[in-house]
């Protein structure tokens, strides 16, 4: 840190209208150094990255200094910035689906950078683009260069992004959550590639992320942000072993730890920002503590033959298949078929949680949809408390719909934007004719309190809530009908660690109180070890391994399970798979 900094950010503030997104942020980046900017959603970490690039809208007000090798970029002309962008500082975006131009061949997208910043011919630029594709580990690069983004997998697209970012040999790469959207095994490969390229080019990296596990593997230094302010910064060792600020310590404690053995009854540590920072005025973030006394309507079990019976499994799947036909037009034959679920058998005991783990495309969501009867299996049996789910009709189907609820990943997509939260939460009560208007209103208030939200929020609309709050609304809605079985499909995956801990603790409480059974579908192994009783690992429509959670984590039998476990980032520096040496 004695060398002159490559980048110096001083007193950076970014204001969107009345909202101060970044508030006096300052940090240095030395040449070749990897600085991680860590924070939860709304911390201003991504905005900081874009502000350095000068890529914010014209309506946004930015103040402070951004010095690149001493040059004041905040005062630079647009023409100078266009020369800096791509050449001196390049950027990697989060979503490989949306960050590449869908209408342009990937080779041309790489060549564009070279044509902009070097005096090369188109043919020469294309030749170098192919060479870059080879360097980022894309086989048959010459052919792939002519592919469009949709013809590549997510991991390959992110490799192309890295090729674009590295094309002009930049001094600094800003990577904004570059692996968040990827499966864990792909994330490991992409990180490895990014830091291989970084070593070869000697570039510095500003790595924006919420994932402390990733940070432990790559950072030289860490800058922790909260609501636009720097809470603490230091070397990765300082931050992980002797953090000064209570927020940093709480954040690290709350990060899911895949190495922590399962301890029944253990609560997920939460981050109590109100206690640490004092309550932000006007924003009752985590309003009343979830009270277990809040009334939840008691539902008489009217599904015949499904009385509580410890011997009968809550759910039993027998040789379940779900096949989709692809292409083939109108005719009922020809075309290919996709075996999304291919012969799955699984049993869930009442009052327990089974985690269904799989990467994207493994068929885990299709399986969940079949269980909730949102989709029909092609063949095989689904028995809910001993009853054939597919055969349910009329009143029995209604009873099933009350008892089995689903929580989806994206709470914004599953909440109607034109209906108040109170209406959304108690829709089920109205549909099942269980309560009048007045009573529904009261129940909605009680349910919001139950999931730790202010009861007065009932008259607000979904867009007025943060992602974490919306997910809690979705949970309140699932609870409204006093369900017995919940299918949670990536229900906490999009949440910040602090909120995720609250939601998981809430689900555990509910399970204890009401003997709920969970089918907990996720790609995230690290939260599962504490939360699930049993784990089933799914790949390409089949369950490759299932068993008691600890057995899976300590003694995985299948090679795929082992590779999944190995790819999960560790949050302890001692066990982290470091991609670069620890700084002295």
């Amino acid at each position, binding site marked *: 840190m004695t060398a002159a900094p490559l980048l110096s950010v001083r007193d950076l503030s970014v204001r969107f209208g009345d909202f101060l997104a970044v508030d006096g942020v300052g940090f240095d980046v030395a040449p070749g150094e990897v600085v991680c900017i860590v924070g939860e959603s709304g911390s201003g970490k991504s905005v900081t990255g874009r502000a350095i*690039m000068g890529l914010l809208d014209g309506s946004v007000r930015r103040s402070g200094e951004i010095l690149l090798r001493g040059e004041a970029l905040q005062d630079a002309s647009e023409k100078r910035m266009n020369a800096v962008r791509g050449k001196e500082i390049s950027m990697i975006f989060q979503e490989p689906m949306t960050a590449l131009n869908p209408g342009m061949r990937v080779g041309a997208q790489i060549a564009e950078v070279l044509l902009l910043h070097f005096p090369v011919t188109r043919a020469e630029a294309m030749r170098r683009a192919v060479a870059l594709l080879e360097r980022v580990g894309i086989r048959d690069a010459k052919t792939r260069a002519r592919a469009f983004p949709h013809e590549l997998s997510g991991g390959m697209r992110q490799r192309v992004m890295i090729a674009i970012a590295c094309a002009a040999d930049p001094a600094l790469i800003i990577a904004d959550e570059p692996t968040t959207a990827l499966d864990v095994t792909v994330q490991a490969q992409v990180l490895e590639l990014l830091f291989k390229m970084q070593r070869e080019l000697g570039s510095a990296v500003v790595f924006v992320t919420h994932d402390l596990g990733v940070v432990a593997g790559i950072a030289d230094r860490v800058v922790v942000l909260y609501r636009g302010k720097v809470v603490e910064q230091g070397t990765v060792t300082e931050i992980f072993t002797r953090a000064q600020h209570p927020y940093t310590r709480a954040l690290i404690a709350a990060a899911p730890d895949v190495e922590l053995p399962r301890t029944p009854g253990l609560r997920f540590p939460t981050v109590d920002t109100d206690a640490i920072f004092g309550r932000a005025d006007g924003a009752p973030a985590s309003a009343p503590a979830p009270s277990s006394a809040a009334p939840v309507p008691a539902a008489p079990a009217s599904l015949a033959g499904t009385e509580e019976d410890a011997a009968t499994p809550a759910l039993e799947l027998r040789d379940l298949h779900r096949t989709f036909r692809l292409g083939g037009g109108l005719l009922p034959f020809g075309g290919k078929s996709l075996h999304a679920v291919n012969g799955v058998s699984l049993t869930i005991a009442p009052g327990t949680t089974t985690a269904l783990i799989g990467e994207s495309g493994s068929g885990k969501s299709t399986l969940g949809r079949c269980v909730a009867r949102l989709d029909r299996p092609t063949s095989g049996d689904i028995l809910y408390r001993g009853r054939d789910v597919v055969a349910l009709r009329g009143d029995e189907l209604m009873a099933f719909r009350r008892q089995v609820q689903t929580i989806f990943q994206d709470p914004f997509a599953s909440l109607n934007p034109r209906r108040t939260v109170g209406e959304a939460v108690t829709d089920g009560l109205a549909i099942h004719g269980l309560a009048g208007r007045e009573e529904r209103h009261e129940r909605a208030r009680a349910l919001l309190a139950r999931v730790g939200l202010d009861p007065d929020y009932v008259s607000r609309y979904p867009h007025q809530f943060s992602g974490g709050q919306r997910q809690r609304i979705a949970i309140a809605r699932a609870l409204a009908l006093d369900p017995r079985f919940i299918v949670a499909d990536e229900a906490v995956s999009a949440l910040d660690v602090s909120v995720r801990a609250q939601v998981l603790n809430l689900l555990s409480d509910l399970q204890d109180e009401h003997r709920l059974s969970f089918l907990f579908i996720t790609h995230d192994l690290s939260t599962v070890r504490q939360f699930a009783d049993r784990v089933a690992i799914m790949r390409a429509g089949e369950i490759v391994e299932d068993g008691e959670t600890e057995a899976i984590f300590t003694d995985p039998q299948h090679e795929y399970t082992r590779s999944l476990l190995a790819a999960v980032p560790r949050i302890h520096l001692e066990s982290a798979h470091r991609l670069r040496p620890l700084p002295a």
Partner: protein
Amino acid sequence: MLRFLGHRLSSALLTLAIAAVAVFLVARMIPGDPVMIMLGEATGGDPAAVARMRNELGLDRSLFVQFSNWAMRLLQGDFGVSIRSGEPVLDDLLLRIPRSLELIAGGLLVAVLLGLPLGILSARNRGRLSGAISSIVSVIGFSAPVFVSGVILVVVFGVWLQVLPSSGYVPFADDPLLHLSCLVLPSLAIGLNFMGVVARVTRASLIDTMDNDYVALARAKGLSRGRAMIRHALPNAMVPVIAIIGIRAGNLLGGTVIVEALFDWPGLSSLLVSASFSRDYPVIQGSLIAIFAIFILISLLIDLAQSFFDPRVRATA
């Protein structure tokens, strides 16, 4: 690409075949009888003369026989002869199809050449005066129906300013310049409404597309705002614009009915209108088939344009 083309062509032919059946039946469903209309005045409806003429025209046979005769000849390129004039229908069609195509092409040209820049301008200068003005122009464009904008154009350019002929048609071979100047006002009349639509959709689509990360990536590569928009946002923003053009191409064809009448333009629509009055079945059927063919051709071109801008369309063919 070839597979895509083959797929679209075969479905176009199938559509045309279904259209032929529909056209035939619709023509027979129009109340009235061509023979009675023709002979009505001359003979006072003498039953023998009517029957004789029906027999000559084949109208006394069953619908099925009439249809298969017509369809068989159609397949050989024979559209039959006009009941009224006795002239081959095909000759008339070949004369008039290019004229209508000219109008449609002119209208499309107006819509695209004016609508696209207008839309781009109002997207780019959103929140500024120039953006607001271009938005207003496009709203006025698509609010005015063809018969209103047509009449205004005639009054302003043809009558007051007298810079353009207000109506009429001169064959290209006779006087190319006059031919083209006759084309200007009808093209504007057909295209102005469409221009408004194109401008609005372009604006909305472009604003939407500009929010994509790949446009931010283009800026992060070092492209200026303008070039990032033209090179990366615009081509992708064109996909819904082209879709709208495809959907609205039918309106364009419908617009020719009014415009051809308003500007005394001897195209396909005016042929169809006059044939309908005299229940001239072969001409009605022939011109409807021609209109269908034009519509299907436009759809085909739209599909091709769409696959050009969006490679994903090709994959789903």
